[in-house]
């Protein structure tokens, strides 16, 4: 169809400010959210250059990466992080940027807080100096993870200079089985596309599986876009989105809400719009997923096995062998039954209220296996408060989980939260890279259901067996 546009194209063209002499396109950033691990360096560079923050009113600082999640924390609870937290606070104050600081009732992981407050909106552009900026695509926003110099550039100009990515649509067909959720779908897509299959593209997720998903699930799905190599992933907004956003404290209200709603309804891709590439994946038979290797594409159903080397493409054999050795697995080994040392439930991937509710339903009335360390870290202080109002903290602590303050914790492990060498960790995070959670730590990525089930069983187990549903 002539003139038919994708969701991505509509947002891109609305935000296109101009084209630079070098050919790059300037895209306006509506919401710029900073964090303590990278922003201090940008604030310093900005100060040295004598430049001001262009739009402090559209810029927000979040303390998440280097903060302790221990109850009663202060700047110094994690001593190595204190310099980052303080530099973030000072840089933000100097530039009139609102800080969601330690102790703020709405502090948390930026990718959790920005959506839950209604700060980021459908059709808006969003940048964070963090590769998981793509998370907020779940609301129909176009987000870009960026580096420190790009961050400084956005602070100074409120635009980002980009080459336009291509468009990829991932159609998710079918209906998910019980205990199969967005994390499992996302890991399955990564297995299908590979860890660089999305490079150079903005990905739109579509199809009945996405339409049936809650916003929290869509945020989880979009969160893992970078693990396919793509900077931006998004879902067209619909009534689920609008109902979820209505009444959130930073969302428009009154006449502006009505106008926004009218605009948002024009955002979904037009019939016949052009995609550079398109894939369709049927999710009907999908089981809860678990990674066996050291990158997110090395994944299988929970009842599956580590690969046999002869089943792996010859060019990938050496890497597979290395991954298996790191993970302490033999080729062909079943994953179910492997003893687990530690469980982490949290991160921008899986730390929202529904994630915690799934985990709590499994933990309720049960006990964490002896000797296993299990941690739940809510994605934001708001999530924490809501969970406590529902008694979830009590369920977790009664079962023997640690209940933390909000932050990135063992996802980035830049706040001192690590596991010990060779420990096997079931983690609801997004990266199972070597050493990501500490030197020699063996990370298996899973959704909250498998994580909670492993904490109880003390080993990798199909949650459906634990709950008697399989």
């Amino acid at each position, binding site marked *: 169809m002539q003139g038919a546009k994708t969701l991505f194209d509509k947002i891109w063209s*609305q935000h296109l*400010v*101009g084209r*630079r002499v*070098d*050919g790059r396109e*300037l895209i*306006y950033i*509506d*919401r710029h959210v900073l964090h303590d*691990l*990278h922003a*201090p360096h940008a604030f310093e560079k900005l100060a040295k250059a004598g*430049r001001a923050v*262009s739009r402090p*009113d*559209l810029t927000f600082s979040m303390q998440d990466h280097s903060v302790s999640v221990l109850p009663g924390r202060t700047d110094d609870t994690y001593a*190595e992080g204190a*310099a980052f937290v303080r530099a973030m606070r000072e840089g933000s104050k100097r530039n009139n940027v609102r800080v969601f600081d330690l102790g703020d009732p709405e502090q948390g992981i930026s990718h959790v807080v920005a959506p839950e*407050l209604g*700060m980021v909106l459908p059709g*808006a552009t969003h940048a964070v*100096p*963090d*590769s998981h900026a793509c998370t907020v695509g779940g609301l129909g926003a176009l987000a870009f993870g*960026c*580096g*420190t*110099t*790009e961050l400084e550039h956005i602070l100074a*100009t*409120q*635009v980002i*200079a980009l080459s336009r*990515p291509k468009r990829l649509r991932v159609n998710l067909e079918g209906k998910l089985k019980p205990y199969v959720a967005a994390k499992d779908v996302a890991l399955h897509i990564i297995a299908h596309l590979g*860890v*660089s299959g999305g*490079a*150079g593209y903005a990905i739109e997720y579509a199809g009945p599986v996405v339409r049936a998903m809650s916003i929290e699930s869509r945020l989880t799905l979009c969160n893992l876009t*970078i693990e396919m*190599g*793509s*900077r931006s992933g998004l879902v067209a907004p619909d009534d689920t989105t609008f109902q979820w956003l209505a009444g959130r*404290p*930073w969302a428009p209200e009154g006449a*502006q809400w009505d*106008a*926004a709603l009218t*605009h948002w309804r024009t955002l979904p891709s037009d019939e016949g719009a052009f995609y550079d590439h398109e894939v369709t994946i049927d999710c009907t038979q999908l089981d809860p997923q678990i990674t066996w290797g050291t*990158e997110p594409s090395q994944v299988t159903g929970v009842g599956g096995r580590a690969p046999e080397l002869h089943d792996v493409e010859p060019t990938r054999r050496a*890497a597979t062998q290395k991954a298996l050795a790191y993970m302490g697995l033999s080729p062909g080994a079943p994953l179910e039954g492997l003893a687990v040392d530690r469980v982490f439930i949290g991160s921008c991937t899986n730390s929202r209220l529904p994630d915690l509710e799934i985990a709590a339903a499994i933990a309720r009335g049960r006990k964490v296996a002896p000797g296993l360390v299990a941690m739940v870290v809510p994605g934001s202080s708001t999530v924490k408060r809501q969970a406590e109002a529902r008694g979830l903290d009590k369920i977790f602590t009664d079962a023997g989980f640690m209940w933390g303050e909000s932050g990135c914790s063992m996802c*980035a492990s*830049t706040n001192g939260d690590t596991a010990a060498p060779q420990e096997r960790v079931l983690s609801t995070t997004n*990266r199972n*890279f*070597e*050493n*990501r959670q*500490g*030197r020699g730590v063996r990370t298996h990525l899973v959704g909250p259901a498998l994580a909670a089930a492993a904490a109880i069983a003390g080993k990798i187990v199909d949650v459906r067996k634990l709950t008697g549903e399989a």
Partner: protein
Amino acid sequence: MQSLTHVTGVAIPMIEDDLNTDQMAPLQLAKGLKPDYADLLFKRRRQNPDGSLIADYVLNQPQFTAPSILVAGSNFGCGSSRESAVWCLYAVGIRCVIARSIADIFRENCLQNGVLPIELDDAAMDGLQQRVLAADGAAHFSVDLEAQTIDGPGGEAIGFDVRASDKLRLIEGLDEIGLTMKHASEIRAWEAQTLADTPWLQQARDKRA
């Protein structure tokens, strides 16, 4: 940013796919806001937990302690957006990375720091990898951005593609912010228009405040 037209020096082979930025810059091990980036580069691969060097790791071999060009596999620089990965490469003198594919954010971070990211097709990459492995740090390779060629022992010059915008930016050593500031009036006009058309995008406010 300094202008970059040529890179000449030792080419270090890291023929591995999916080398991620966590490995390049393991920030868990970084102390403070300004760590020693040269020391941090691939620290877990270069050093034992007690700080002693792992002698057979490529960066610890005497001929590769001061590389200028890094030759990798595919999907180089995937993972975290941390620009410190590029700062670590830069700190040991690397000004050019050549791979079958380079991750999107990492490529941007390279360009921001005057490091030339080059992607080669499989045939060209197979040839270059063999030549770099054969040279083993003994003879220099050179990359000419103007001519878009890679030259070195063991064969003919290899051509490469580069986006015109990226080439211009590196050769001129353009000040990114300065370049964008030339569009300040367009930015202000965009803001005014957006405030009129879709005001919620220009106003981020806590409605309870």
